[in-house]
């Protein structure tokens, strides 16, 4: 009984941690973007203010049940995903409910949140939302391929399909997988910006074309829930990358350092590039990233 209590407490703590860290990362990225553009920029806690304000806004319209539950769907999927990603190598609180963080399972459950958003966006009937969703799904087909190639390469190479298994491999050998399986890391890294949807891959939201795409009819509490979910999800993705390629983290400070470093990569790329068209984006992912994925697979198999 005690174990379960701790687990639930740990789960709640992890969720709060993910939320806070994710929000601050969002703030940092805005600040950094502003500094690069020679602006002062908003304070780093700006995102908290935004979420808080949206939460206090009245939400007086809905387009139907699907529209209403879409944000909930997203946030519950983000949290569920978080529950199955090992945040720290060991420790009582931050290992979550994971039964070993199976990679295939994570790949799939990460899609579920997007599906919820897509359904909510669809039910509003806004054509922009639908276009955004169609772009997003198309782009997903693009970046998932190199990303999965990298993961499959690792799984075949180290004969385990769980994140903890890969973490163990790293802690035993003492080297991070980004050094011992460089091609897989390169493929995964090249695929990563697609997941975070910064420029040049921000074709889903595309404020100037699609009026923020799928979320264009979501305001107030809906939007705040979605932003919360997004920040948790960003943290989940970063943690997953760190766990798989950078040896995980033994305490929170190391984790924050590693994830932040990783996070800067799509952000900085985003500040200096213009937006791709959808097919350009997919072609990019099916180009060099997939090539490195192949190399990784061959490297892993032989």
């Amino acid at each position, binding site marked *: 009984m005690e174990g379960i209590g701790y687990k639930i407490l740990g789960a709640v703590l992890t969720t709060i941690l993910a939320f806070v860290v994710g929000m601050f990362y969002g703030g940092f990225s805005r600040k950094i973007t502003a500094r690069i553009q020679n602006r*002062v920029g908003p304070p780093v806690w*700006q995102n908290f*203010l935004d979420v808080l304000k949206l939460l*206090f806004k*009245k939400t*007086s*319209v809905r387009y139907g049940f699907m529209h209403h539950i879409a944000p909930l769907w997203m946030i519950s999927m983000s949290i569920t995903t978080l529950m199955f990603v090992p945040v720290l190598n060991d420790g009582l609180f931050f290992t979550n409910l994971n039964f070993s963080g199976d990679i295939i399972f994570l790949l799939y459950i990460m899609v579920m949140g997007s599906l919820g958003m897509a359904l909510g966006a669809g039910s509003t009937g806004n054509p922009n939302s639908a276009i955004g969703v169609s772009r997003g799904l198309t782009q997903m087909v693009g970046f998932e391929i190199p990303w999965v190639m990298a993961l499959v390469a690792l799984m075949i190479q180290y004969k385990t399909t769980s994140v903890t298994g890969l973490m163990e491999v790293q802690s035993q050998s003492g080297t991070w997988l980004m050094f011992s399986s460089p091609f897989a890391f390169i493929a995964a890294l090249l695929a990563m910006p697609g997941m975070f949807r910064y420029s040049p891959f921000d074709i889903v939201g595309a404020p100037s074309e699609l009026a923020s795409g799928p979320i264009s009819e979501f*305001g107030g509490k809906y939007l705040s829930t979605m932003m919360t979910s997004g920040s948790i999800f960003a943290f989940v993705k970063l943690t997953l990358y760190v766990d798989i390629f950078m040896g995980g983290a033994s305490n929170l400070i190391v984790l924050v350092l590693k994830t932040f470093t990783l996070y800067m990569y799509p952000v900085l790329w985003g500040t200096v590039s213009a937006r791709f068209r959808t097919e350009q984006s997919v072609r990019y992912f099916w180009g060099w990233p997939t090539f490195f994925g192949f190399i990784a697979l061959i490297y892993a198999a032989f």
Partner: protein
Amino acid sequence: MYNDKESQKIVDIIQNYARKHSLFILAYGTGCGAIEIPPTMTSRYDAERFGIRGSATPRQADVLLITGYLATKSLKRVIKVYEQMQDPKYVIGFGSCTINGGMYWDSYNTINVLDKYLPVDVYINGCMPRPEAVIAGFVKLQKLIQQGKADGWDIYKKNIDEYKANQKKIITNWVMPDFNF
């Protein structure tokens, strides 16, 4: 605790602080004033440091920015956009045209006083106002929010019949959806 007056006050303070520092603007940019928005938002004047940020759709926006004169035709659109925004919401009249018609004061197809049709919280004077003035206007709005005085949305709701009568006077072919919130 929830119905306690003191704690309600604390909630209000937090609420107003958050609202003040996070303004999502929706610029209705048909008038010539729209040209002043980009410099306001970009590196030179950087409105984002006040938490001001553009938003793409009315559902997400807090502030409706009417940049300049409004033709009778576009008034209809502005009203629709305003009504689609979620409470609380604020309107900033931008430039002389929204105050008294400005250089179009005797035009047959523009409106002269925006306040008759939509509750304006802050007017920014000038033809056109420079970005400094625009930012000053925003800061003024933030002050009003802090004091809880920016309640145009509430006034609009309370005096809905009067506003609608005024609007219908101008807009002859009224095909708007009902006011639904």
